[in-house]
């Protein structure tokens, strides 16, 4: 079942738009993630689709039919909540059966569906327990089972993994994705965690500032961010955004320090250039031409994360090889050897400079270590 969002908007009071002009098409069987920082309106959008919050403007279609003003129960969808929304006074079985009983299904069918759903989420041995006797992950599965049992083909998920610990969250990502594929569910998945969105979704909608910033596949979003917000929101460590100005015909100077050669001339203006830390190389102290000073050093195991300041004081994040030794106060030489994104002063992307390497190569840097 496909879902069509057509210029949806929400305002609680006149002219105070919580969401504006949200348009998207969600394919049947697709895993669609809505990502954004807290307060961006992503949960509001999900609740509008669910029918829990009235839609102020625009049109919602589910499976080709207008659903803008339908009550929640008639939208043929289910929802999984961050808090799981389990009934504490009911056993696992009864929790899963809740909707079916409310809809007055025959007892036999209820039993069949509930048993099947519980089996799918591997909770057979816990089916008589109350929610308080289950772990967080098991509760999450009960909520899933309830959604599955209802047989609706659209499932809305509101940060379903946020309350789990990190390890379980990673495990559940895979499970959820597998389940979705196995059942052919259309999932609309709200999260604030860009990694979740990247790893699970077929398409991602990035929401910020009451508007859509970008819709695309995870790769699109990562490799071709539409603006500085999307660019800095996706990827860890975060992309560095450096102020830039035109210093030659085909050259930008970033933070008065780094030079970036351009494939074509650009109009003279202020620019912002985004470079992921992985696209920067560095030469340890004593070698090369020092242009950045180390402020903090974080050992992450597989790599070292450095927070440094360019010579003009602009902060910059760098990654380094774990075998090298860095100390606070060290002067380093930083250069660009990966993709650089050029944004205009309003943050909209202009073009990308591939492999903006100027002097040393990455292999060279490694060889030096």
């Amino acid at each position, binding site marked *: 079942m496909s879902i069509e969002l057509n210029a949806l908007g929400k305002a609680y009071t006149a002219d105070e738009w919580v969401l504006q002009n949200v348009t998207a098409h969600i394919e049947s069987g697709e895993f669609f993630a809505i990502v954004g920082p807290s307060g961006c309106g992503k949960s509001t959008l999900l*609740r509008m689709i*669910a*029918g*829990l919050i009235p839609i102020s403007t625009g049109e919602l279609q589910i499976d080709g039919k207008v659903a803008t003003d339908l*009550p*929640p*129960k008639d*939208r043929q*969808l*289910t*929802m999984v*909540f961050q*808090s799981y*929304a389990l*009934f*504490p*006074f009911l056993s696992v079985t009864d929790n899963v059966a*809740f*909707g079916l009983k*409310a*809809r007055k299904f025959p007892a036999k069918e209820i039993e069949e569906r509930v048993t099947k759903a519980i089996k799918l989420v591997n909770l057979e041995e816990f089916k008589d327990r*109350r929610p*308080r006797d289950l772990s967080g992950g098991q509760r999450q599965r009960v909520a899933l089972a*309830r959604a599955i049992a*209802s047989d609706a083909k659209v499932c809305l998920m509101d940060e379903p993994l946020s309350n789990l610990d990190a390890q379980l969250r990673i495990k559940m990502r895979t499970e959820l994705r597998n389940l979705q594929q196995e059942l052919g569910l259309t999932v609309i998945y709200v999260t604030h965690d860009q990694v979740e969105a990247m790893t699970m979704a077929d398409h991602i909608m990035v929401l910020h500032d009451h508007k859509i910033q970008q819709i695309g596949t995870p790769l699109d979003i990562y490799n071709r961010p539409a603006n500085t917000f999307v660019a800095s929101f996706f990827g860890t460590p975060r992309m560095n955004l450096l102020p830039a100005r035109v210093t030659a015909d085909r050259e930008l100077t970033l933070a008065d320090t780094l030079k970036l050669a351009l494939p074509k001339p650009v109009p003279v203006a202020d620019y912002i250039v985004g470079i992921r830390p992985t696209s920067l190389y560095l030469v340890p102290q004593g070698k090369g031409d020092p242009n950045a000073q180390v402020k903090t050093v974080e050992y992450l195991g597989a790599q070292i994360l450095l927070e440094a300041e360019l010579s003009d004081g602009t902060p910059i994040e760098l990654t380094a090889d774990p075998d090298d030794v860095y100390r606070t106060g060290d002067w380093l030489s930083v250069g660009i050897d990966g993709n650089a994104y050029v944004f205009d002063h309003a943050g909209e992307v202009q073009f990308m400079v591939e492999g903006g390497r100027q002097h040393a190569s990455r292999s060279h840097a490694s060889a030096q270590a």
Partner: protein
Amino acid sequence: MQAEVTPAPKPKADQSAAISRQRAKGYNLHAGDKYYAFAFLGPSLLVLGTFVFYPMLRTLYLSLFLTDNVGRPTVFVGLKNYIGLLTSSAYQASLQATAIYVIAVVALTLILGLLLAQLAAKKLAGIQWFRTIFSATMGVSVSVAAIFWLFIFSPSIGLFDQIGSFLHLPIVAWLTQPGPAMTAVVISTVWMNLGFTFLILFGALQMVPQSLYEVSAIEGASESYQFFHVTIPMISPTLFFTSTVTLIGAFKSFGLIDLMTAGGPNNATNLLVYRVYQDAFLSGNYGLASAESVILAVIIALFTLLQFKFLEKRVTY
């Protein structure tokens, strides 16, 4: 103390096993702890003993005697006070009146309290104002309430009958006929109870997570289905608490009865506790009044026990 008995750190599983063993056996008192225990418990035991246990035992003792005109137990009559009471038609009428009163008060208080709480939980303009009004009776004293209701129920100048006569309805002698008098007393008591019950139930309703209603709405539950299958079970611990408190309170209702009907007419509102007051503090018949107190205490204990046995099972989650 604890540091001395706690074993040196051991593997985790072993330690938790030790703790659960200790729990199963109960906490072991050490020689020194006993002194602490008595020192700490002493004052409260003294107070409880003086003001609770001694009076209880004394009441039990007095209930087996006839008392003379200054309240001294003089003639031992065994259970005759009890037998006399339980076979007297007046006392049976009191039992019946109490049963009607308690059931009506508890049922109406809970139903109306829940209704008001549901209304107040709605997000409507000016609802804050209504919440204050609904809980206002909490601040009203019994005597003020009695005056207020007496005015409303009074024959010839009462508000109800004024309105009634204006609408050419038959005049109801609210406080001078048995049936209406009970109704009047029940209405007043429920009104008095409502503020507290409303506040407690309103608080309980606010504590029900919104997501449960959202999931129910999505899963196809109607509003009434949600009320009976989500709201009621979710607030059942609070309902249980309020019903117990209201029940015990209803058994002990005194002020409104005394001020509004003084047990009349024809003993229609002569509740068990009011009878105790009449026999002890008006007639000075302490033996009989003690027997009545014991019966009342047993009934309340019985009801509370039943309530805990049957209701609590269904509300724990």
